[in-house]
């Protein structure tokens, strides 16, 4: 083993990166559920999770423990192999895509090796992501088929049809971005968006001077919401018609795997939206001396959050909260201090802006879910084929013309 790592140091570095990213991703998956429940509750004038830990922050841990302890039955007539394969496929495919997401421009040093903030920097990164997400439909279709349940089968059929239909629009909607960038490499797509029009408007693809990709982003986001089976396009698990759709029969941790797969797919979609349309890790401020203070924005952000948490925490109603919340506030303050150190401050800029953009897209995702009602099935298909696909093709034609005109 040691010899292997000595010969291929990139193996060891990649293993470390994969382990760190997996830990961060799985934690954020758990807290995405908490976040969604909180946002949903506040949209509906409720409080949301509050009992388990301060502000319900231990809710994901409690949920996870419950998923592990529950009975895990397999239906009588189920196809056992495929029944166990489906949730595994869904989760593993959804998690794999994060390996291709670049988080920042700078390199970090692990075991004496300078390495970029991405696990796999592939020339056709975008295509590989689409390849992996296009396999995601198997999880849903096979779960529906193998459960030996009519509701599951209908849910699986519906969602296969839906995912095939919207995958076209999803892929076509980013062609505009590809035409502007001229590459499939995600890091290069971000680099192509560097610069500012009239010294203040960032040249992100959404605001590109060649042709703003507003139409492209609208189509991408709509298709992506449908592709991840989320409201208003969650016909695969329409509770009012299909009990729970394709995962009706699943319980315990297998159900949790579907659940986590859905949120992992959301995070991938949000990361891609940030990279393709919002300039990825690029700062929204021009990189001139007048804006040098923006380098301290991560510090200010963490410090403000930490101080607010300490002030709020010491007056919290439970004793646990009065200890835990200020402690986390102090951790955030320490993080703020570290972020202001020379050597660290340059590295955190990229990931900070990238994660901010991803977070905003995720918030919109949740916001849409709790605002719009579900479409009818025929409406869903009509939107996919008669509205979204022609719009994406129009975007391709317009962008091609604009690119040629600007040459």
């Amino acid at each position, binding site marked *: 083993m040691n010899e292997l790592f000595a010969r291929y140091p990139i193996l060891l570095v990649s293993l470390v990166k994969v382990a760190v990213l997996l830990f961060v991703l799985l934690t954020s998956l758990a807290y995405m559920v908490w976040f969604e429940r909180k946002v949903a509750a506040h949209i509906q004038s409720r409080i949301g999770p509050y009992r388990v830990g301060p502000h319900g922050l231990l809710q994901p841990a409690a949920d996870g423990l419950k998923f592990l302890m529950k009975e895990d039955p397999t239906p009588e007539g189920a196809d056992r192999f495929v029944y166990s394969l489906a949730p595994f496929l869904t989760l593993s495919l959804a998690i794999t895509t994060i390996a291709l997401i670049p988080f920042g421009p700078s390199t970090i040093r692990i075991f004496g090796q300078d390495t970029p903030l991405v696990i796999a920097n592939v020339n056709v990164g975008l295509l590989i992501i689409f390849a992996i997400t296009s396999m995601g439909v198997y999880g849903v279709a096979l779960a*529906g088929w193998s459960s030996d349940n009519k509701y599951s089968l209908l849910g699986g*059929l519906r969602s296969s049809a839906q995912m095939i239909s919207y995958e076209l629009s999803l892929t076509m909607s980013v062609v505009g971005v590809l035409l502007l960038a001229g590459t499939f490499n995600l890091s290069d797509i971000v680099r192509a968006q560097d610069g500012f029009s009239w010294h203040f408007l960032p040249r992100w693809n959404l605001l590109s001077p060649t042709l703003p990709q507003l139409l492209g982003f609208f189509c991408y986001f709509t298709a992506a919401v449908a592709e991840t089976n989320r409201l208003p396009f969650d016909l695969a698990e329409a509770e009012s018609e299909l009990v729970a759709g394709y995962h009706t029969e699943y319980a315990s941790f297998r159900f949790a795997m579907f659940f986590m797969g859905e949120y992992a797919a959301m995070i991938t979609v949000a990361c891609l939206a940030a990279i393709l349309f919002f300039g990825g890790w690029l700062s929204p401020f021009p990189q001139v001396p007048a804006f040098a203070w923006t380098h301290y924005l991560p510090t200010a952000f963490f410090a403000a959050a930490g101080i607010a948490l300490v002030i709020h925490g010491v007056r919290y109603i439970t004793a646990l909260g009065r200890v835990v919340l200020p402690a986390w506030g102090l951790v955030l303050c320490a993080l703020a201090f570290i972020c202001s150190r020379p050597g660290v401050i340059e590295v955190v800029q990229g990931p900070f802006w990238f994660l901010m953009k991803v977070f905003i897209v995720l918030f919109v995702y949740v916001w849409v879910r709790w605002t719009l009602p579900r479409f009818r099935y025929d409406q869903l298909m009509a939107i996919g084929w008669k509205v979204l696909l022609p719009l994406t093709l129009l975007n391709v034609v317009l962008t091609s013309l604009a690119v040629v005109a600007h040459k």
Partner: protein
Amino acid sequence: MTAQMAIFLVLAAVAIAGAINLILQRHPIHSALSLVVVMAALAGLYLLLDAEFVAAIQIIVYAGAIMVLFIFVIMLLNAGVEERTNMSHIASYAGIPLAALLLLELAYRVARASAPLVAQPTPEGATRQLSLLLFRNFAFPFELTSILILIGMVGALVLAKRDE
């Protein structure tokens, strides 16, 4: 044995095992899933040859679209387990010798091949070269193929609508 050789052997073994399993399985869904495994292994082989674009397209088109349609149709028709029949006489007397002959011929050709079988790695990826070929040198056959597919689609629609 180099790492590349080891990866090649694993992928080749997976592809062959998937293909054999495809024939042996009696349920159409299991056969279709085996075919997906074969497609994925082939994509891995393309990656090994530095053909990233072809590998991605292989997964998107074959594993992600065509096989999903297969599985969709099998689910829609609710096809059950197939019955095993006795081999027909033609298959048992002519098929096995012919298959052996084909294998021998392939082995002979591969053994005699002189050109290196591994493609030269391209630093910037083959995507650019491939698109130049498709959209400049062979633009006309490429567009012709797409019209051919369109004709096939229209034909299928006409056949499906004949009753009304």
